[in-house]
């Protein structure tokens, strides 16, 4: 045989052998789950540290979804949860690890915007989808990353709603505090802009350090400004201390308002005690009460994002079901682009309401509600306000 004929024969051979598979070819590549092997759902959330109760709540939500779903096309499901520390470096490390794990189809997470942002670049590189239940920062869906979705809201809405509420209550002079994180800072700054757009005034803006416990000096500095409202962008561990220490330094007529990071029974209401009374936070509308009952029977009181995590995991699993092609040998082949498109096309009634995504990966039609901590009948809880 001449060299030319050799090449032709070889090519013909490859076409013959690979022919059947080319049906499943996906421009982003495929994930293969061998016969009898489980499908792994990755997860990045905070499991240790100051916001761990929030992160573990998220894990429980996803775990329950996986248990509810059972299996996909005869393959069992495994949730592999990793500790993302609510920050960039560990989230990136998890992204590198799970995106390179051939049995991971996608990921629920990361918990914090500061983790989701750098990690989504890694996920984009490997084209592994991620659905965050809790990363709300504005810019996450503004960076043109096709594999990023979230079942929570965009902080644009959260800042807008919170500001509108404050103005309506007549709290026109505000001080804005934040924890310098991607999440807290952008939310707080956006809140401030919304206040000024509506004719209010931002008297001062200060950054606090995560993990610090003593905010009395900065609150004392704020005190002579006599703000009607202090808005805090950040998490409950710091938020509850701000609320407590406001009372301590004598800011007792000033209202406190914060975000979904503070919408947590354990770290805000319980940890704040009496000082949490009358504080305002923003969060989605209450999830399906039947589901909440089921969840709390299994895991105890829910905190914040377990419903969003439940829905995120469910959407991901449903999309896998749709995109996966079962092979004669029992293995599954999942096109990465096909999986991404299946998620993008989601139209599903979850426990947090109707879920569909816009072109950026943001949830369409999400609503943010205002809650107030009230003490009624000897029980302290977040009461949803009519607004």
């Amino acid at each position, binding site marked *: 045989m001449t060299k030319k004929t050799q090449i032709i024969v070889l090519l013909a051979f490859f076409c013959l052998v690979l022919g059947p598979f080319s049906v499943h070819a996906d421009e982003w590549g495929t994930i293969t789950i061998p016969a009898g092997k489980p499908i792994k759902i990755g997860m990045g959330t905070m*499991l*240790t*540290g*100051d916001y*761990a*109760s929030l992160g573990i709540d998220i894990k429980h939500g996803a775990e329950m979804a996986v248990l509810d779903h059972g299996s996909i096309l005869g393959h069992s499901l495994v949730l592999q949860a990793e500790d993302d520390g609510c920050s960039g470096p560990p989230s990136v490390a998890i992204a590198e690890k799970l995106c390179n794990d051939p049995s991971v189809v996608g990921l629920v997470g990361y918990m914090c915007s500061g983790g989701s942002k750098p990690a989504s670049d890694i996920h984009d590189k490997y084209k592994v989808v991620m659905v965050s239940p809790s990363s709300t920062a504005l810019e996450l869906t503004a960076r043109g990353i096709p594999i990023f979705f979230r079942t929570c809201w965009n902080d644009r809405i959260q800042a807008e709603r919170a500001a509108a509420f404050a103005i309506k209550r007549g709290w026109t002079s505000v001080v804005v505090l934040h924890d*310098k994180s991607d999440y807290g800072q952008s939310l707080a700054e956006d809140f401030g802009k919304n206040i000024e757009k509506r004719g209010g005034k931002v008297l001062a803006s*200060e*950054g*606090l*350090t995560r*993990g*610090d*416990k*003593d*905010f*009395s*000096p*900065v609150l*004392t*500095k704020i*005190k*002579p*400004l006599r703000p009607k409202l202090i808005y805090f962008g950040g998490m409950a*561990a710091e938020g*509850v*201390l701000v609320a*407590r220490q406001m*009372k*301590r*330094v*004598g800011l007792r007529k000033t209202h406190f308002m914060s975000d979904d990071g503070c919408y947590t029974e354990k*770290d805000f209401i*319980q*940890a704040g*005690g*009496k*000082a949490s009374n009358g504080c305002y936070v923003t969060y989605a509308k209450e999830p399906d009460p039947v589901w909440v009952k089921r969840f709390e029977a299994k895991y105890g009181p829910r905190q914040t994002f377990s419903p969003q995590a439940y829905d995120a995991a469910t959407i991901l699993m449903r999309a896998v079901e749709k995109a996966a092609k079962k092979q004669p040998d029992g293995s599954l082949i999942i096109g990465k682009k096909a999986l991404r498109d299946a998620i993008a096309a989601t139209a599903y009634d979850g426990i947090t309401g109707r879920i569909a995504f816009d072109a950026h990966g943001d949830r369409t039609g999400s609503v943010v509600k205002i809650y107030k901590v009230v003490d009624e009948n000897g029980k302290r809880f977040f009461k949803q306000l009519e607004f």
Partner: protein
Amino acid sequence: MSYLLNPQVIIDQIINGLTIGGIYALIALGYTLVYGILFMINFAHGEIFMFGSFGGFAALTYFVNSGFSDTHPGLSIVAAFLAAMVVSAILGALLERIAYRPLRNAPRLAPLISAIGASIFLQNVMMLIIKARMQVYPDIIQEEFLEFGWFSISYFQLFIISGSVLLMVGLYLFIQKTKTGKAMRAVAEDRDAASLMGIDVNRIILITFVIGSALAAAAGVMVGIYYTQIDHMMGFIPGIKAFTAAVLGGIGNVPGAMLGGYFLGLAEAFGVLFMPAEYKDVIAFGLLVLVLIFRPSGILGEVVSERA
């Protein structure tokens, strides 16, 4: 800026500064006492403070669960302080016996490395115990305020300020007046001569660790009651800040550590008036650098033993 310098803000910041300053001072005393005697920096002291805080937390949680704190809130808190001090005192003594005494005559770097190792070890032990989750001190006593017209002070602040002063006066009297206190000073000045005067030097060193640890434990419970949140890393930043306070006052110098603690607390409180609050920690470390450059012996001067 000028609005910040009204008397109300100044009084409020003095209260803030004295409160946290008292806590820094109590921790700083542990560094200074040990340095005064052994010329080593016990970098695991922040963890002793942390364990004390958890000792108090465990006791209070127990009292809450058993209902004892409902009937005897004050007694519960006193008992929590004692429990914390016992926990830290035992830990401090163990640390001295296991991590430092075998290295007493080793080069100076050896006990330092041992201290850092002990510090990391203790952090990890507590991390395993609490599964790395933040714990919240129970609210046994509701925070009330003493109103003075245009300013007010919380009972907690009053309690911390007076409690820390009381402990420090007690320590000062102990060191100045009692037999053991005099022995501590003698050992600090000249270990061998003290031994030849019939003082059991090892025992005095152990007592020094125990006292420093108990003071740190008191600070730990105060922090728990005042700031409510505690975790296994809580000793790190206060530890370094208290070390800064000790260096500020002149390491090895007992009144210096007290002064340094209050100075640092007030500097932090007033510092945020002139710069963004996010730089609060920078104040402490900035001061540390400045002191080390311009006055390494501290405000009151390092007490250096005068050996023959």
